[in-house]
């Protein structure tokens, strides 16, 4: 039974982190750039949401502010990259590092608990009738609520992203990632598209940070550490399970499912006795292997 609860809880976490993975998918796969801002913007979303809630804000409204803050972070990275011609990886690292200080300022301390405050999880708990509450274990209920929130956001974002990337502006953004010269020759300001893509991506990542902070009941300035690797892990695991599907809809779903599977895998290996401290190493190895597979396959063919 222990494993069942671990999987349930991991699924909920996976769905909330899937929002981050969707954000990273936009920069890494669609825009074709590795954006390092995400470590900072994830923590930014979490810290801002927690701080606002502690000072009496509505938890959902705090998420909205988190999204806006994340978009602003993406805009800074985009500006550094497109207007000041700083390589995109370095531009992202600069934003990420400055966000560490900014997040400390926002939070006022390295971490902040939400024990006595409302979060979206506790808000939902309040509307659930007592008769249901009595029949279900507290931790299970918690996990189920988190899963519910994750599914709502996942479905909503899939629709919104599917719609956006089908519009004229969204098509131009996709083209910018595929063939920048071509879409510029077709009259599109590609700098603007890159900034827009980074803004959307970091807005989503900050939203994910806010959701995760609220579900775990605290915010922490280092909560975004390794976010890019976790996002990439979700994307590559999704690709492994869904294969090379071509439709955009199934790609979005594969990212979300990938994120859930990633969390479940981590939960299972933790159950099997993996030291929690080794989790990031484990994740990095998964991503490294997944990214290396195409190259290894090609070389294997040459040897034959």
């Amino acid at each position: 039974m222990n494993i069942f609860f671990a999987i349930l809880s991991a699924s909920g976490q996976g769905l909330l982190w899937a929002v981050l993975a969707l954000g990273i998918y936009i920069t890494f796969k669609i825009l074709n750039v590795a954006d390092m801002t995400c470590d900072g913007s994830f923590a930014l979303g979490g810290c801002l949401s927690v701080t606002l809630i502690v000072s009496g804000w509505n938890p959902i409204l705090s998420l909205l502010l988190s999204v806006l803050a994340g978009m602003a972070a993406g805009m800074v990275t985009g500006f550094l990259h497109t207007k000041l011609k700083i390589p995109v990886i370095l531009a992202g690292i600069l934003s990420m590092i400055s966000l560490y200080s900014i997040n400390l300022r926002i939070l006022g301390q390295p971490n902040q608990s939400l024990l006595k405050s409302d979060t979206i999880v506790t808000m939902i708990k309040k509307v659930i009738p007592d008769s249901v509450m009595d029949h279900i274990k507290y931790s299970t209920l918690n996990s189920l609520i988190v899963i519910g929130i994750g599914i709502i956001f996942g479905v909503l974002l899939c629709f919104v992203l599917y719609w956006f990337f089908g519009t004229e502006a969204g098509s131009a953004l996709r083209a910018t990632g595929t063939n920048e010269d071509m879409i510029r020759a077709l009259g599109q300001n590609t700098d603007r598209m890159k900034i827009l893509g980074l803004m959307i991506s970091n807005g989503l990542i900050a939203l994910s940070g806010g959701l995760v902070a609220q579900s775990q009941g605290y915010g922490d300035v280092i909560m975004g550490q390794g976010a890019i690797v976790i996002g990439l892990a979700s994307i590559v695991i999704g690709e492994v399970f869904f294969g090379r599907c071509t439709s955009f809809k199934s790609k979005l779903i594969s990212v979300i499912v990938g994120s859930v599977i990633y969390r479940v895998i981590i939960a299972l290996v933790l159950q099997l006795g993996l030291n929690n401290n080794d989790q990031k190493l484990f994740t990095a190895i998964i991503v490294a292997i997944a990214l290396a597979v195409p190259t290894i396959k090609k070389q294997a063919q040459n040897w034959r």
Partner: protein
Amino acid sequence: MLYIENLHKTFNADTINEKQVLKGVNLHLNPGDFVTIIGGNGAGKSTLLNMIAGVHPVDSGSLKLDGIDITKQPEHVRAKLLGRVFQDPMKGTAANMEIQENLALAYRRGKKRGLRWGISSDEKQQYVEVLKTLDLGLENRLSSKVGLLSGGQRQALTLLMATLVKPKLLLLDEHTAALDPKTAKKVLDLTETIVESNNLTALMVTHNMKDAIHIGNRLIMMHDGNIIFDISGEEKKNLQVSDLLQKFEQASGGEFANDRMMLA
């Protein structure tokens, strides 16, 4: 139509790799001119086209197209007036997007891209019609990814995309150089058809002297950053490859035409 006045361009100025590519180019095009540009490697042909398109900023001189001063306009702004086909067939299309998506992107050249749906259903019907003119069977593959097409097919599609919204000036930068002879011929024929039927003004860089002579109504030879030969009308029609080679030898001071020019 197009007025280029005293255009200068130097790459890597004030360094050991300094290269003066354009040394005061003057060129006036009349509406409907179809000009072929020839010249040796490093003569400045591609740079001239790239300067018109706004890929590189000008050092000095001015560019006017259709009455508009485009000298300082960013590349994506002047794209409104220009159709471009590149030498590399991969460069003119987005490989992982569908044929119809590529056409829809081209259809919106010079227009603001907002939150309307990327392709309307009316458009799709229109794309079927224009694709039929290519005679490559692409009209049945609207939702195929462009990456699945051959180089020749992609170049034909790029040509179609460059002229889907009628450009004031069509820039063709050795657009058949990367294709096999048979495909190159087909794309070239298509180019002539499209330019004629739309009555376009066009600049075409080529390394093939026969093509340069037979296509278009005007021929320009560039050498060392200058236009050294400009011929049009009847005179051009009577031109022979040997005349061009002779001109080239004169200009380069007896130096032999390079291999690529000889082969052509």
